[in-house]
């Protein structure tokens, strides 16, 4: 049951040769929701970008589905393997209609647009509208909906709650859980909203200033609230981790 989908070993990654994330090791299995937590500037988004092949690997390795991640010029291949990344700014193409956005979920062949609608019925009425005219919540639904019909093996969602009202993201979060349960996809979410993330996630990793501060199951982290808060506030008692 526990098929390893993503394996990161001793990864150093960053920009212009300067490591932003150092010595990160983590893994995500099929059917599992894993949260990557941490304060601003911890290196969460950088980690996701690197997994998508758009970062600069300075040391260590990233393996997805048993293959190591290609370099930037080949980054488009990852999506074809089944690595779907919903970036922080959602990756919606504003000039295209909602339907056209959904049809881009796969590079080849027919796309089951109706399946996205079955997850988010609100999208049904918006098919011919230009995506740039959607509200923030509708855009996020479109982004997640498109990710679902891409049939991901590894789904990565960056800051789903960003810029959205609580009532909207509280409805979106369970959908992520559902994807993992129903399709056996591995799901990696990046969140600043700790409680929200731990509610749906099985396990979590906490980054602080580019180092792995703590990790464990959601329950363990919930119980060790003091340490969790400290890693957000950057208290220096974590060194023995």
């Amino acid at each position, binding site marked *: 049951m526990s098929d390893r989908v993503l394996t990161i070993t001793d990864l150093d990654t960053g920009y212009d040769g300067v490591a932003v994330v150092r010595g990160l090791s983590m893994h995500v299995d099929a059917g599992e929701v894993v949260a990557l937590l941490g304060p601003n500037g911890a290196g969460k988004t950088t980690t996701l970008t690197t997994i*998508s092949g*758009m970062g600069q690997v300075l040391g260590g390795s990233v393996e997805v589905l048993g293959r190591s991640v290609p370099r930037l*010029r080949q*980054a*488009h*291949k*990852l*999506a*074809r393997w089944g690595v*779907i*990344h919903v*970036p922080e700014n959602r*990756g*919606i*193409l*504003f*000039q*295209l209609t909602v339907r*056209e956005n959904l*049809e*881009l*979920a*796969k*590079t*080849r062949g027919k796309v089951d647009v109706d399946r996205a609608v079955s997850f988010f019925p609100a999208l049904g009425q918006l098919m011919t509208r230009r995506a740039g005219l959607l509200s923030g919540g509708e855009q996020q639904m479109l982004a997640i909906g*498109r990710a679902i019909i*891409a049939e991901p093996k590894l789904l990565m969602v960056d800051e789903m709650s960003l810029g959205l009202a609580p009532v909207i993201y509280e409805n979106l979060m369970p959908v992520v859980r559902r994807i993992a349960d129903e399709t056996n996809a591995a799901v990696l979410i990046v969140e600043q909203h700790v409680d929200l993330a731990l509610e749906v996630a099985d396990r979590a990793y906490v980054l602080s200033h580019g180092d792995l501060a703590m990790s464990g199951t959601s329950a363990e982290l919930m119980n060790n609230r003091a340490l969790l808060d400290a890693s957000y506030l950057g208290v220096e008692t974590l060194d023995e981790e």
Partner: protein
Amino acid sequence: MLQSLSRAQRVGVALGGLLALVWLIAAFVDPAVYFQPSVLGLGTGAIIAAMAIGLVVAYRASGVINFGHGAIATYVTYVYISLFDDGMYPIPPLPNPVAPIEGLFDVEIFDIPTMVDLGGGAPMAKGWAMLIALLTAALLGLIAHYAVFRPLRYAPVLAKVVASVGIMLFLQAAVVLRFGARAKQADPIFPNDPVDVAGVRINEDRFWLLGTVILITVALWALFKFTKFGVATRAAAENEQFATLLGFNADFQAGVSWVLASVLAGLFGILVAPITGVTPLLFTVLLISSLGAALLGRMSSFVIAAAAGIALGMLDGQLFRVEFEWDWLPNVGIRRALPFVVIALAMVIRGESLPSRGALVEGRLPEAFAPVITRWRASGYALLMIVSFALTVFAPFQYRAAMTNSMIGVILALSFVVVTGYVGQISLMQMAIAGVAAFGVGSFGTSAGMPMLVAMPLAILCGIGFGLVAALPSLRTRGASLAIVTLASGLAIEEIFFNRTGWFGLDRSSKNSDPPEIFGFDFGPTSDFFFSDDKIPTAGFGIFVFVLTAACCLAVMRLRRSRLGEQMLAVRVNERAAAAAGVNVASIKLAAFGISSFFAALGGVLTAYKLGSYGPDSFGIFASLTALAFAYLGGISTIGGAVTAGTLYASGIGIVLSDEYLFDIGPYTAYVAGFFLVATAVFNNEGIDGFQRKQFHQVVNWVRSKMGLGPLDPAALRAGQ
């Protein structure tokens, strides 16, 4: 729909509608004058439309407005005609690696052939010739993408515009080198019997061409609307990173679109050639109308671009007739200025900027290097000035001539440094402004008999006035759109003023200007001077040009360090941020265009004095493009760059010295300049000046490391310690 338009847009639409209505009534009353000529314009319209949709494909592929599109069409068409005529396939001029050995020992070892015989000494069948020509087009598209525009995909717009201008100059020059500048005819492809349509006798081939254009437009529209390739290309055009995350290879798609655009250019070139005949410049001149049509379609709608192109052609045919009919119209090239009117309209109606591409990173602009003047640097400048002065005044006449050419080139390049280098506004009309001043000084000075001290400032003021008026669109548009507007303005000025006789136009077949004189003492290139020999130019003119050039360089140096200069650089980096910091962006831009026009106009006046008798060629759009090419090659954002540009200028000191001691670059100037322009845009956007500066810094650091000192940081190097 109508509610979403701004007031200016509504006025534009209403005016257009009114004009259309008036014309419709006139067409009913007198069809021979007001309808039939526009049918004759359908052929031209089809050509303009064909190029416009090609431009749209290239823009959608890589966000580049391809000024080289017409040149690609020209090159492919000449290849086709050559294959069809005698089976010969041209090889573009290449440097011969054994040439230095041959020169040294005066032997013939090996010559790179200019043509390969593919037809076995016989003409080739039309189909084969067309196939090979179109394969050439595909290859050009691939090279354009992989060698030029892919490396430039994150580069600033300026670099992309410059690179595409470089491609244009390069291919154009290749055609002239291989086939000469004469017009060529081609065998008909479409049936071309005359038919009667709406009472007009017109050749059938126009309709075949029109049909082909419409068919391809519809096909392209469907391709981009319905296929996954099309939707994904639109996605990549909007945001390359997002498209990549979805699994699309944006790069490969752009390559495919470039091939498509090039093949379209070539195909229509071949189809049009039998109808009009071709000259090396034909398609590039038509390109300006096509740019107008493509702009009306916001560089993204095939249907609007094609329709606008066809309408433009019909309007052109109509105006051609009307110019005869209405003899009260002033004798100016209204018809030839039509593209400018259309582009200006496009800017008003579709005022919003072109859709731009979201990219991972935005490239850097060339550094506007301003060294701290130390004693060492000051003595270096002094030495340079002394050597230049000596060459200008005391050297044999060919060096004196080369020096004056170069110094005028420096002044013209400075006009680009101010407006493009410092403020980042791409102006492709600088030589037209120079021309206004040159024709002005002839009109005021020689025709009207004003003394030089009146005529010269007056002519320069005229140049500045034109520059400022033509700069007004820069307040609303920027980047590549501004480049198009200024190109069209340049064409309009050229057509309305220089290409006709009359006041401010040509005297007869050329324009004349008397030598400059102050209080009865004249110092033109032919005037006697105290100690000079009587060869042209005499030293007096050299001193005149030298003093002005030195003054201009010092003035720009002051400008760069002034508050105005800092504000200019702020506008260049980010207009909004500059505005937020309290910089009045509009007035800074106008100031830059004004100052830049001053230098252009001064360069024009000096050119007029130098030549004495001159025509429109020196001040046309191609002169402007070539001038930009040299300015960029030298270094667009520094005074040192302008000086370097001057030495490279046509018949400048660098070229003359090269002729004398290295090799005769003369006929290859445009070809080589085009090549290096592309290379500069791709590899080193700071031009030769920036390249030398960095080399020098490396040498300094190397010497320091040998002396056991640490390397200097860039700030310290700037201070010149």
